[in-house]
């Protein structure tokens, strides 16, 4: 007797939980050759709204955590990714049509990149902060602080896991919380990463993952007054100029789309893009 396989319905990841889309919609995820792979939830603008609320309420705790603690939490995610390596490889093989070895290389690179960003958590402040020169008996200090809630349109081409990690990890380093719209046609590794996050030490709501149409959700995220920055790295095929204009209406920081093999390449500037510089003065002492 043959065993009946249990097909998986992939859900969203919002506020540390895995809800279905509020709209009740799902869409079929297929292999490159068009074979059915799984159903994924098709998030609506209201799911995006709920995700922003979850991200906002998680922001205080995540931003206040010490940078050393954030680094440890991020590093542990890399450990968990390593543990789920086989599942990621299988999903990438199925959904991207890569060979097992190419998929393995992508997973390794994604893990390495995550570790690289985790290392920056307690170091970027020393690089980007400064004790400013002054001509008086006081200190003047500039420090980077997290921007707030960052919406991300993840890369829609290239390696699905690597692109997702490259966009999400840098925003987390400084203490931002993120709402990320995953690769529309190949969302499986993103949701599996959500399952990794749910079992790691990342507080619920720090990362919120939406699957579905970026064209549908991006305008609502860009114009949302409670989103502080939007990374349009994967929005190259959308009308991103209008997204930029919408974002400007509520003073939202924007990172423009990138394309090509080195889209969202690891760099300190991706971390600093989602920080605000706070400058304070302090007396040298009351002697």
């Amino acid at each position, binding site marked *: 007797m043959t065993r009946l396989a249990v097909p998986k319905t992939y859900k969203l990841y919002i506020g540390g939980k895995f809800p279905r889309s509020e709209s009740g919609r799902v869409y079929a995820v297929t292999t490159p050759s068009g074979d059915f792979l799984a159903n994924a939830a098709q998030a609506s603008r209201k799911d995006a*709204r709920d995700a*922003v609320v979850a991200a*906002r309420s998680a922001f205080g705790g995540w931003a206040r955590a010490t940078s050393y603690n954030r680094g440890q939490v991020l590093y542990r995610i890399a450990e968990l990714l390593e543990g789920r390596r086989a599942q990621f490889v299988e999903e990438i093989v199925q959904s991207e049509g890569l060979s097992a070895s190419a998929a393995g290389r992508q997973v390794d690179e994604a893990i390495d990149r995550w570790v690289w960003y985790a290392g920056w958590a307690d170091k970027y402040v020393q690089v980007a902060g400064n004790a400013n020169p002054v001509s008086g008996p006081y200190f003047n200090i500039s420090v980077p602080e997290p921007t707030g809630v960052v919406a991300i349109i993840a890369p829609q081409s290239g390696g699905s896991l690597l692109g997702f990690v490259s966009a999400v990890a840098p925003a987390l380093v400084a203490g931002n919380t993120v709402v990320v719209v995953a690769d529309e046609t190949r969302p499986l590794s993103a949701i599996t990463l959500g399952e990794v996050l749910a079992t790691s030490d990342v507080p619920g709501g720090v990362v919120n993952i939406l699957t579905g149409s970026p064209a549908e959700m991006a305008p*609502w995220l860009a*114009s*949302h*007054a*409670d*989103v502080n920055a939007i990374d349009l790295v994967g929005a190259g095929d959308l009308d991103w100029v209008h997204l930029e204009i*919408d974002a400007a*209406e*509520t003073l939202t920081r924007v990172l423009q789309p990138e394309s090509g093999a080195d889209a969202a390449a690891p760099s300190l500037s991706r971390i600093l893009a989602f920080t605000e510089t706070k400058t304070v003065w302090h007396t040298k002492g009351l002697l």
Partner: protein
Amino acid sequence: MTSTPVVTTQPSTRSRALALIGGEATDANLRRYLHGIPGVDGVGLEQRAAAISTRSIKTSSKKRAIDTVIGLMDLTTLEGADTPGKVRSLVGKALTPDPGDPGCPRVAAVCVYGDMVPYAAQALGSAHAAGRDQGIFVASVATAFPSGRASLAVKLADVADAVAAGADEIDMVIDRGAFLSGRFGQVYDEIVAVKEACRRVDGSLAHLKVILETGELSTYDNVRRASWLAILAGGDFIKTSTGKVQPAATLPVTISMLEVVRDWHRLTGARVGVKPAGGIRTSKDAIRYLVAVAETVGEEWLTPNLFRFGASSLLNDVLMQRQKMRDGHYSGPDYVTID
């Protein structure tokens, strides 16, 4: 305190109440009457509340509902840390809930502790209703709010003090201990006495809201009995909760109170108000209450004289929804005031 006149304020209501009870308001008579009321079908009530929660209110209806919610709101601050400055900023918010939109309606009332009433009245200035039918009312909690554990003399002094300071409405708490141990006569007499203490110098009466604190009454049957008791004793409003006890206002409890108000109206033609308070934080929740009112007692109850929301954080959510409908994009907490 002024000397209490012998004749009660609403002889018709009182005599009607006594006729219903079948004699004087003694424990025995009240018990016979209140325990004779048919029990509440809890499952049916919760089902009805769940059904009401599924109504979809969108676009222009939602817009109107949101403005109605603001106009029915008792904007509340009941913290130990309240200061005159905080009350003044609350009044500022009551007058212009959304400074970016002059078309935004004002709230119905501000609700504060008794000692803050003078500051609220002063800050309202000419916008203070002060006995008129229009303007913003000042509501004051009294009678040893929220526990109600004080002697009757202290409670009455508390009420008279707030009324003298300019409160238009008094939110009293019933003695839940007495109610739960069956001393209905005591609860009844207390409400009657407090109502009398609401008398102003000119002889008019401040509106009396009777807080049942449904979270401490345990059962729907008790809520129904307490609602009847409060109405029989002459309460102008019945209010669910102080907001200091969990659970506070819930939709099923409010519906069962609305049913009592509806039955009382059918019986006597008199209209009594309902005020759910505490735990209503989102406009979605608030709109469900509007639907419940419209479908239980009728839309004529959706006026500040007959229905209120007791809330503090609700207003910000409602304003964000309002801004979303106006601007076409989601708003955020940065665009409303921090309370």
